[in-house]
């Protein structure tokens, strides 16, 4: 039996003209397959909205309060673990150094001063090296090369910003 176009009319909920309705009616009397589509259509169109039992909002409020309390406890315990862990780690890492510093203060002060001087001289050397580079590089790099390099760097920067934006885009539907 040819189900077209009756099946399409039924499956797509198309609005029908009186003649089409009449044709469909005649077809449905003979065709079990299309009649079952029509029956399931009827059931879908007459189906009711089911309501929850009374007091849904009150139960929600209770659940929300319970969830908040749970989260608060989780935060407190998390913070406590983090602080105690951090303190333990600091004690484990810095304990021997502190103890040594108290045992021989002169040695500790000498080490600190030498470290400070090392950082200072390193920075000074870095500054001098950069100044020399800035004086020398323009002799080798043409303005066009410089333009290309700067464009590439900007491009990479733009890609980074774009990636960060895409990752942080607000999702919908949770």
């Amino acid at each position, binding site marked *: 039996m040819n189900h077209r176009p009756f099946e399409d009319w039924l499956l*797509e909920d198309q609005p029908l003209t009186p003649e089409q309705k009449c044709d469909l*009616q005649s077809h449905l009397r003979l065709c079990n*397959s299309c009649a079952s589509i029509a*029956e399931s259509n009827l059931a879908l*169109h007459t189906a009711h909205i*089911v*309501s929850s039992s009374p007091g849904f*909002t009150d139960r929600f409020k209770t*659940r929300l309060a319970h969830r908040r309390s749970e989260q608060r406890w989780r935060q407190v315990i998390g913070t406590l673990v983090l602080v105690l862990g951090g303190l333990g780690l600091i004690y484990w890492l810095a304990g021997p150094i502190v103890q040594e510093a108290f045992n021989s203060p002169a040695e500790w002060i000498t080490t600190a001063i030498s470290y400070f001087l090392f950082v200072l001289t390193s920075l000074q050397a870095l500054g001098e090296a950069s100044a020399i580079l800035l004086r020398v590089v323009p002799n080798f790099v043409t303005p066009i090369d410089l333009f290309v390099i700067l464009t590439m760097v900007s491009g990479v920067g733009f890609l980074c910003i774009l990636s960060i934006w895409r990752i942080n885009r607000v999702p*919908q539907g949770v």
Partner: protein
Amino acid sequence: MNEEMAWVIQAQQGSDEAFTNLVDAYQKHVYNLCYRMLGEPESAEDAAQETFLRAFQHIHRYDRKRPFATWLLSIAAHYCIDRLRRRKFSMASIDQDEDEGGFELPDADAPNPETEVMHSEQREQLQGLLKRLDSVDRAAIVLRYWNDCSEVEIAEALNLTVSAVKSRLHRARRELAGLWQAETPRSKPERRPNESPAF
């Protein structure tokens, strides 16, 4: 600005009372979606509550350009789909509780008891058949026929394309009809003379 949007804005600013108003306004639709998806009143209640909790926690992410109902139903549909997948994964077949049904669907406007009994049976049968559909197809059917969502809204809610929604709805309805025919092989729709049952 309508009242609903005012509640949404207040809820985004941290007002519990405004969010409670939203719960009041949408509980029926969310619960119905969950019930049609999961098939049991207890699971539906739990899923609906969880939907509102998730919505409350993520209300700041809600884009005001979209309809709030679609956003909320999207959360509910995704939650139910996940739940059904977990249920399927844990080998607890949904067919096992097929005959549990038993949930009363009150109808105060019933024209006569016989018709009401027949419609009630049909609704129970429909609920049983819905359980056999794929979870995403089921969500599409429920959003279309119970929540009157357009194909575009269903696509937004289920993260699908509009053509995918059309094809899923078409497939699901054909499957429903097939199952309906298999369940009631000799039944004939009760129709008035010269009237199509679908219209």
